[in-house]
């Protein structure tokens, strides 16, 4: 039976690169599979829907209607990969709701594979949030994102035991360049002739990491 991955990009902290990861992952899945459904649960941060309006819809988890609209959709095993860009303000409510409604268990039953991509930071809120996620999410489905641009030091020891996906730091001028709303990672790979540029290699490295992540998940499935 095929399974449908649901990637939840999250952090209890603002401005750690969640939308950047969600953008790249969505573009990668779109390139690889031909389709992807992205959900933007951000009110106070740079927003995925502004970057990828064609594949992204806004969602909310602060009321039951919003929760139903989101979760009744992502629990469906329809072979369309899902990416959720979970804003820091919605972190607690989302995982509380997931726990209460038995999301992980029901997902496993229906052939849906939730993967939590936790964007790490070195503050107390992140440490607490990660420890709480460890109680709720199986280790194989909990990935720490080590975003060098944000984490300018060592990853906290508690977060270093599981699976880690590293995102290299870009120079500021390139960071500004990719932050433009019209920028597309896949578009850049397609149109930039010089594959030796730093940005070209950075995007390819990240796409390769996503591919490895998918492969690992596939191998671990029963």
């Amino acid at each position, binding site marked *: 039976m095929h399974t449908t991955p649901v990637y939840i990009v999250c952090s209890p902290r603002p401005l750690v690169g969640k939308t950047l990861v969600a953008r790249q992952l969505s573009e990668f899945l779109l390139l690889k599979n031909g389709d992807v459904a992205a959900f933007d649960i951000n009110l106070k941060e740079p927003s995925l829907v502004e970057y990828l309006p064609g594949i992204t819809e806004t969602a909310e988890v602060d009321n*039951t*209607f919003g*929760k*139903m609209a989101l*979760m*009744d959709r992502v*629990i469906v095993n329809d072979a369309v990969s899902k990416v959720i860009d979970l804003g820091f303000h919605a972190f607690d409510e989302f995982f509380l*709701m997931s726990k*209460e*409604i*038995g*999301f992980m268990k*029901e997902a496993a039953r229906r052939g849906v594979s939730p993967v939590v991509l936790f964007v790490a930071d070195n503050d107390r809120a992140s440490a607490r949030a990660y420890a709480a996620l460890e109680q709720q999410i199986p280790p194989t489905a909990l990935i720490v994102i080590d975003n060098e641009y944000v984490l300018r030091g060592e990853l906290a020891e508690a977060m270093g035991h599981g699976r880690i996906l590293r995102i290299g730091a870009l120079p500021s001028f390139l960071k500004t360049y990719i932050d433009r709303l019209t920028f597309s990672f896949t578009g850049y790979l397609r149109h930039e002739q010089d594959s030796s540029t730093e940005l070209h290699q950075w995007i390819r490295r990240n796409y390769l990491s996503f591919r490895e992540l998918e492969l690992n998940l596939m191998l671990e499935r029963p």
Partner: protein
Amino acid sequence: MGGQGKFMAKPVVIVVGADKGGVGKTTVSRTLLDYFNANHVPTRAFDTESPRGTLNRFHPDITEIVDMTTTSDQMKIFDTLNAVTPSVTVIDVRAGLLSPSLASLRDIGFLDAAKSGQITFAVFHILGPSIASLDEIAETANFMQGAKYFLVKNFINNTSFFEWDQATYNSYFHRIKDATELTIPKLNEMAYEQVEVASVPFLKFVANKGPSDETANYSFVLRGYVRHWLSNVWTEFDRIKLTDLVGSGKPGARMGEK
């Protein structure tokens, strides 16, 4: 009625009631019927909201609508206690009828039978957030010799019970020794409404089934909320050893909790 299971020698009668309306009597009755069903305890129910019947809408297979004020319907309930297979009888008593019903039970000798151990008798007294409702406790307690008395604080409609005023709280909740307090937690409003609309037992809603066991299309989120809530309610029933009370032993693996 109510599935197969171990049969008990002694009939069990559980009265769910309050003198105040809208405090969740039928909701608690429904959770009890689901609990016994999941624990394979054969059960029958009587709905005294004659002629409409709310409990009957959710559990039509095992529920009969009766008018507790008539002798013929009292006979229908109490004269059949030893004659029918399900030896657990749940009676959802309509608002305002709890005290008169208990008085009737005393008059027909039922309470004496409970006192002498021939019948297991339990009352789930659903409390509202008013002093009047709390005053019922003292009134009801007069009938409780020989019965198990459960004071049910129902939080399903965001009620508070004077916990902020410890003196008032103690004066009511600690007045009657041998009364056991029970808490029904709050259920998400939309989930509650969706089950109302579906008109099915909570267990069937969780299992995504319609009234005739056909596959339904309820929201996964709402089903999750109901499952979580029902599990918490049943934990309370486990805590008060409800299955021991009805003589079916410890709750084991039961359906609806997977």
